[in-house]
């Protein structure tokens, strides 16, 4: 941690320049950081309203699950040959959302990009809740969710083990490792901040709970020394992990011979798409949060500008991957591939493909404009379009390929049922319910790390605080 954020230097840069180590000129001292972040924990009417909507949406999804368990998986709108529909699309969508959190907290940490400091806690929490959401969908998809543990290699009287050559088993290892490590990374970073809450808390019951959660953290030099090293190694582990997880998810498709799936470009294409969609979800969360919690001086326009540059870059990577897929289909000379890709944009699923291309390739090009990169309203609107576009990207990958395989007699169609739609709504409810509960119980910004970029008080010389 200590080596990432730089203290405020002499001569703060002009407010119109976003660089990797954006600073917080409006934050004067450590006490202000404590006050401002702890103030976000107060309950408000808007928060209760938001939580109610999220719980209602979650209950819609839960009801659909009970209905599906009772009536069977046939309620999901599957129609041969399209036997992967909304569940797998939404699974890939939520796994992708999670990736930006780890990118911001781990990869940008290793790359010494200081702009992560203000947003990484919210992004990390987003990762954990997104992976929790994603993990439900393969379990829902298997129809008999109580049998999901058959995927795990545990000693059993049948002496049967999962097939380790199957991408679905790789998924189990990748997703469960990712959820465990993301949760651990989030909690370890939270320990010093929970200690701050503990020390400020006046309610004895709450103070006791916070004391347990903070593990008796005392901010001693011994604790910080080992904490910094552990945090560095967790970031070093999380970095290849995050790249591996969406690569493994892409293998679910790329290992099959299905047209449109059997491509070596899939792992980097999926990883870039995941980072792209995850950053969009960070905007969807952080832009309202900075306004409602009055945190504009922590998540500044420079922070948004820096994240917009990442979105612009990843949009171009994703766009490039889309175009390369068409080129390879043409260059391969394989007729099934060529016809499939023609069908993707001009056939029965043309509307889905054009939504994807518009939202993921065209609209993000607006971010070449610095004015729009620094316009929170536009970034929020764009984030909704990107979220929509990235869900449709997964729709375009899953449905057209399965509905248009090699033999014309196999060709079919797919229409999501109301159960599918209820699960989709429920997934958003489940995700936002956890996120809204998180932001009112624990600091949504890393207090200890924010203090690293605020100059401490000094008696002799220059500092950011009072002299």
């Amino acid at each position: 941690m200590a080596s990432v954020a730089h203290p405020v230097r002499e001569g703060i840069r002009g407010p119109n320049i976003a660089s990797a180590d954006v600073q917080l000129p409006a934050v004067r001292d450590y006490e202000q950081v404590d006050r401002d972040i702890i103030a976000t924990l107060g309950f408000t009417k808007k928060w209760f309203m938001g939580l109610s909507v999220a719980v209602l949406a979650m209950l819609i999804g839960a009801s659909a699950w009970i209905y599906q368990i009772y009536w069977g998986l046939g309620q999901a709108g599957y129609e041969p040959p399209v036997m992967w529909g909304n569940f797998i699309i939404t699974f890939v969508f939520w796994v992708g959302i999670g990736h930006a959190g780890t990118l911001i907290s781990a990869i940008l940490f290793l790359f010494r990009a200081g702009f992560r400091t203000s947003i990484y806690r919210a992004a990390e929490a987003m990762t954990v809740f997104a992976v929790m959401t994603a993990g439900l969908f393969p379990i829902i998809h298997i129809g008999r969710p109580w049998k999901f543990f058959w995927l795990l290699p545990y000693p059993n009287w049948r002496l049967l083990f999962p097939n380790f050559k199957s991408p679905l088993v790789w998924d189990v290892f990748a997703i469960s490792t990712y959820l465990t490590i993301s949760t651990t990374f989030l909690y370890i970073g939270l320990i010093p901040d929970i200690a701050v809450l503990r020390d400020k808390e006046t309610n004895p019951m709450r103070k006791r709970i916070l004391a347990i959660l903070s593990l008796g953290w005392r901010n001693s030099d011994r604790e910080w020394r080992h904490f910094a090293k552990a945090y560095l190694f967790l970031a070093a582990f999380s970095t290849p992990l995050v790249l591996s997880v969406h690569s493994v998810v892409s293998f679910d498709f790329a290992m099959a011979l299905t047209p449109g799936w059997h491509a070596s470009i899939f792992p980097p294409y999926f990883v870039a798409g995941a980072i792209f969609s995850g950053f969009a979800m960070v905007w969807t969360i952080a832009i309202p949060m900075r306004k409602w919690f009055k945190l504009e001086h922590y998540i500044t326009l420079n922070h948004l500008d820096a994240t917009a540059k990442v979105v612009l870059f990843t949009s171009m990577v994703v766009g490039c991957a889309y175009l390369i897929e068409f080129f390879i289909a043409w260059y391969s000379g394989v007729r099934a591939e060529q016809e499939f890709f023609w069908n993707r944009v001009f056939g029965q699923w043309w509307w889905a493909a054009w939504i994807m291309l518009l939202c993921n390739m065209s609209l993000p090009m607006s971010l070449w404009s610095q004015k729009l990169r620094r316009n929170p309203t536009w970034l929020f609107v764009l984030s909704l379009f990107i979220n929509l576009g990235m869900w449709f990207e997964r729709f375009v990958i899953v449905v057209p390929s399965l509905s248009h395989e090699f033999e014309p007699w196999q060709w079919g169609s797919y229409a999501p049922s109301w159960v599918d739609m209820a699960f989709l709504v429920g997934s958003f409810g489940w995700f936002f319910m956890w996120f809204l509960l998180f932001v009112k119980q624990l600091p949504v910004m890393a207090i200890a790390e924010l203090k690293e970029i605020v100059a401490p008080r000094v008696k002799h010389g220059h500092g950011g605080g009072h002299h």
Partner: protein
Amino acid sequence: MQGVVGAFHEIDTTVAAIEDLKKKRIGEVTVYSPTIRHELEHAIDAPQSVVRRFTLVGGLLGVSFGYWVAIWSSTYWPLVVGGKAIASWIPYTIIGFEVMVLVGALSTVAGMFINSRIPRLSTTSGYDARFSGGYFGIFIACDAAKASQAEELLRQHGAVEVRREA
């Protein structure tokens, strides 16, 4: 633990006090700070953290277990799938990698907990709630005979509050 604790408002005075305490060797020094500061790290000059050894051992154990479980279960139930060898190294690298990350990261956390001596039931000895807020703290573990010298030194360097811990 018996000793003297001093609270400082400024980082430069804290650094000066640490350096002076190290020179005079009054007792073992513990420094508290609301966040990591390089200035304090340099003044304390503590040895490198040994957490990295836990990471290395955990990672090696994890990768070994990941490969082993995949190879052992394949040879235990030798069924040819997709024309691949019974024990296929390339797909098993994914399992090896994921388990390496899992065990390596959890060992890192265990290493941090063991070396930081957490979880801890009490924070009271030598600690003050202000040390997580805006103040820096120095605790000197010493007996009553040296406590006066420690108190004087802390005050001399600008501690805003100095008290003895029984």
